């Protein structure tokens, strides 16, 4: 299947033009050959007339001059042949050029006058024949068939030459047509290309919607797309706001309950119940966090984002450095200044925030963040010099997002959220050892 609209149009136009030319060609050839035959007939008629006017009859014998007024009869190699037969079909005169020819022609002296015909010899050669019956010559009664012949070969050559010229002409016309069509299509499809450029800009976040400067035929499409983009953006915003409100309105009561349970825990008789209450509060809180973040941070369908990594890292590291001020963590960056990651800003911030806090919490004093190409794919790596994760626990840690109901004490939902965000972007999170001595979280983005 041909994907390009332009190639499709070009192909269709070329096939149409070719069919048109193929239909036109035989008609043109037919017309030309008819005209050519007519002119040959006229010329042969005039040649016969030359012979008639040169002939005389004396004593019932045909007398022909040695030299005829038309040069072509006199030359030995001429292609114009002249014959004169009597009424019984006997040859009485032949022109000089007929010396090497042996024409097998039998005139029919049947009173029909002139005849133009095409005859075929035994050796395959064909001739045009013009046969005139005369009854009088120079006022004397005489019955002769005066015949002029010309080979068909020349006619064929002329016709072939014409066909060749027609083919060449049509080929050149087709070429010019295609070039003009290409130029026309380029002009016509320019607006589609402009739309592609604008869509690229939308995907990269440089533009909010399509411009209004498109041809009338596309305006409905661009307007619909703009509406869709706007509504998606607004919906995401509304969605995020209501999720935030929901989080606030659910978790503040939980904080109150937590306080109540702590009050209960101070009374020895209620301690066990307080413990149950607290573990349920913790579980609810984690579920709320996890589900809300999951809902708000999924990849958007229309816009493909490219977020500059450095400013985001700077603000996150600034925040963490402030919170973990006593720890004096040394952060190393291994990325170019303009490094970009194909994710939405909010999602990338949550993802990096969770992974970086993890690193900050567990490291001894060193964290390294790097971005580079590995096996042709973009890989973001966050390493620390902490205790690392034993190989047999890695799978479990990364699987937690799917089994949140199984509680492992001491772990937040940070990694589960990170894993979920990464999955929604078709990226892969792996956990390994770092040369720094601790864990290395690697996020590999599929080439999109």
């Amino acid at each position, binding site marked *: 299947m041909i994907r390009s609209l332009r190639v499709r149009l070009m192909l269709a136009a070329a096939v149409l033009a070719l069919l048109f030319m193929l239909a036109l060609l035989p008609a043109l050839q037919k017309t030309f050959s008819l005209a050519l035959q007519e002119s040959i007939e006229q010329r042969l008629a005039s040649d016969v007339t030359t012979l008639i006017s040169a002939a005389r009859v004396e004593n019932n014998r045909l007398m022909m001059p040695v030299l005829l007024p038309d040069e072509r009869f006199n030359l030995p190699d001429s292609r114009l042949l002249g014959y004169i037969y009597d009424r019984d079909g006997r040859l009485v005169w032949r022109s000089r050029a007929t010396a090497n020819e042996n024409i097998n022609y039998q005139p029919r002296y049947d009173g029909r006058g002139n005849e133009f015909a095409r005859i075929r010899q035994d050796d395959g050669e064909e001739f045009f024949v013009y046969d005139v019956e005369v009854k009088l010559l120079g006022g004397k009664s005489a019955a002769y068939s005066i015949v002029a012949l010309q080979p068909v070969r020349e006619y064929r050559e002329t016709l072939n030459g014409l066909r060749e010229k027609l083919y060449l002409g049509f080929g050149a016309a087709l070429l010019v047509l295609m070039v003009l069509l290409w130029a026309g299509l380029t002009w016509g499809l320019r607006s589609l290309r402009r739309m592609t450029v604008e869509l690229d800009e939308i995907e990269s976040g440089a533009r909010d919607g399509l411009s209004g400067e498109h041809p009338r035929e596309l305006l409905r499409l661009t307007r619909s797309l703009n509406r869709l983009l706007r509504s998606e953006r607004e919906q995401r915003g509304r969605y995020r706001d209501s999720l935030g409100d929901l989080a606030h309105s659910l*978790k503040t009561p939980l904080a109150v309950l937590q306080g109540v349970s702590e009050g209960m825990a101070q009374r020895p008789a209620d301690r066990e119940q307080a413990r149950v209450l607290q573990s349920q509060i913790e579980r609810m809180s984690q579920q709320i966090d996890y589900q809300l973040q999951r809902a708000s941070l999924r990849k958007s369908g229309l816009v493909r984002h490219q977020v500059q990594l450095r400013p985001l890292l700077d*603000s996150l590291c600034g925040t963490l450095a402030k919170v973990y001020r006593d720890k004096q963590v040394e952060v190393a960056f291994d990325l170019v200044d303009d490094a970009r990651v194909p994710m939405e800003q909010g999602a990338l911030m949550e993802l990096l925030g969770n992974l970086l806090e993890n690193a900050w919490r567990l490291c001894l004093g060193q964290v390294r963040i790097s971005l580079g190409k590995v096996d042709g794919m973009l890989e973001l790596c966050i390493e620390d010099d902490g205790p690392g994760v034993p190989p047999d626990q890695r799978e479990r840690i990364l699987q937690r997002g799917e089994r949140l109901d199984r509680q492992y004490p001491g772990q937040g939902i940070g990694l589960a959220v990170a894993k979920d965000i990464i999955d929604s972007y078709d990226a892969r999170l792996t956990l390994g050892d770092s040369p720094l001595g601790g864990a290395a979280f690697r996020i590999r983005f599929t080439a999109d």
Partner: protein
Amino acid sequence: MKLLVVEDEALLRHHLHSRLSESGHVVEAVADAEEALYQAEQFNHDLAIVDLGLPGMSGLELIGRLRALDKTFPILILTARGNWQDKVEGLAAGADDYLVKPFQFEELEARLNALLRRSSGFTQATITAGPLRLDLNRKQALLDEQPLALTAYEYRILEYLMRHHQQVVAKERLMEQLYPNDEERDPNVIEVLVGRLRRKLEGDLGFKPIDTVRGLGYLFTERCR
């Protein structure tokens, strides 16, 4: 220490107020940012706990306004959403730490103590001045490694003076450390308390770290580490 709590949910506010008061702090708990700004302008606080999801002026804006008023006390934010956007914005606006709701009071207290310690320039949970050692977590004073029997008020005054060592501390400031803003106050109480504290510190060793600066207040003369 004197704390400002800004939380719109009445039950949580009440809980924070009572638990923090039990831990030996003087707590002003308010429901909105306007009231918090008024309190911060009128009194001297050592730390503020601010909920980000306040009605009207947001917690984020409140933090910005407090910092614009040159209030340098540490600010701990409480956030319901727990997302990084909020945390980063909060800390960029001038907060010092965050806590996601719901939280255990012990965690809140640990964060508060760390912030208070840092704000007065101490990195350890103890402050030492000569033979005197203050254990900030246990809220206990040790003189020559012997526990000193101090009342809660005496301890608060001693901790405040040691945190602001080699600075003149006005009586009014010490008063704020003892009573909420709207309570009746008697300035003589401070003199009585400081007198008792001096006697207990002097003991057998003759340790006299608290001077009176006439008309201005008190001065803890020893260098604290």
